[in-house]
């Protein structure tokens, strides 16, 4: 009887965790083309307080409903199994190119850390060019503490004009209808998602996240 109840608790907890979508741009992805986002979240142990979630990706883009990713770490499932990937060059034809892409997510018994970075970003969305020399996002979730997000965006230009990130979360920039959010941070009860650069076009056809890091515990 107790075992049955425990299974129910685990099932409910797992379902709740699985509801967390990755990356947060997936909300837009759903509205764009009904794309089912990659679902993250894995129960490490039977206790709800030790559920780890972690993932990082250098680029995730949705163009006309087609999802493309560059340097995606995959979903953290175990504190003993850090995940990471990297590639020297990456591109999504017609949209962007970047260099030295890397993404990693690591867990401990009491925290999760994720990080994504790339260099020499060159992107064009709705005819507007966006460049950056370096982009990094980091997410850190510590058991019992508030999650922490951080983005480094250097050498950013939008439409040929230099843009200075304030460092504050969710800095919005609008250029000719192009919506850009710098250091986008979405906090939830289970952790944080950090999108260093989130770009959406005015027609809702393109949704690009550059430098995504997610951590939860």
């Amino acid at each position, binding site marked *: 009887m107790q075992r049955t109840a425990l299974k129910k608790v685990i099932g409910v907890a797992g379902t709740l965790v699985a509801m967390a979508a990755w990356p947060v741009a997936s909300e837009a992805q759903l509205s764009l083309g009904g794309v089912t986002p990659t679902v993250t979240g894995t129960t490490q142990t039977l206790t709800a307080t030790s559920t780890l979630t972690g993932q990082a990706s250098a680029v995730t883009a949705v163009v006309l409903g087609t999802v493309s990713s560059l340097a995606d770490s995959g979903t953290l499932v175990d*504190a*003993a*199994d*850090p995940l*990471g*990937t*990297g*590639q*020297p*060059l990456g591109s999504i034809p017609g949209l962007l190119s970047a*260099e*030295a*892409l*890397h993404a*990693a997510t*690591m*867990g*401990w*018994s009491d925290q999760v*850390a994720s*990080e994504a*970075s*790339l*260099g*020499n970003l060159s992107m064009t969305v709705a005819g507007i060019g966006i460049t950056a*020399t*370096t982009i*990094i996002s*980091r997410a850190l979730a510590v058991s019992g503490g508030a999650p922490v997000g951080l983005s*480094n965006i*250097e*050498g950013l230009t939008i439409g040929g004009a230099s843009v200075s990130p304030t460092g504050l979360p969710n800095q919005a920039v609008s250029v000719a209808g192009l919506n850009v959010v710098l250091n986008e941070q979405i906090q939830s009860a289970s952790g944080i998602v950090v999108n260093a650069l989130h770009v959406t076009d005015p027609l809702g056809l393109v949704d690009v996240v550059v430098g995504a890091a997610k951590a939860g515990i």
Partner: protein
Amino acid sequence: MRRTIYMLFAIPLMLVGTLTSGPASAHFVPAPCDFITGGGFIFDNSGQFINFGAHGGCKNGQFWGHVNVLDHSTDPPGHLRSTSITGYLFDPAFPKARDICGTGVVTVNGGTFDVTFRVRMEDNGEPGVGVDRFGVRLSNGYLQSTRIISGGNIQLHKPNPSTKGPSPAPTEAQMCGTLPTPEQGF
């Protein structure tokens, strides 16, 4: 009595001498093992961009990580892509630095060839620009000596007792062959 006093002073001094007289290049796997991650760029001696993105550590009794480096001194840029990680090392002289050794593929000037590599990443605080350091050395003689990054950030993460390296820990030569650290002067 004299013998006792001698023993009280001489033995600790001998121990200190033993611990500090090892070769300056003695680098070893940190125990417990930790992780280092980072991305950004340095400038080479002629002012060209060197972009990097890398992470390393221990995992399931092995070494873990990826290293990618792009050198803009050629057009198109030459790049290193790691294919295996063979070492992760601590340097007592630079306790906030970790070296990652491995094998990789270099693509430059229209050609591709295999190399072994050794990169150094050092986390000296936040923000990383102006304080953290990065360097890379390849088995073909290529060297960007470890220097302060001009962009990006490097993060040394705490140890994770559940992610161990190989046991017994390999020697520096087993991990990195004859490649010295990319630190200046080596």
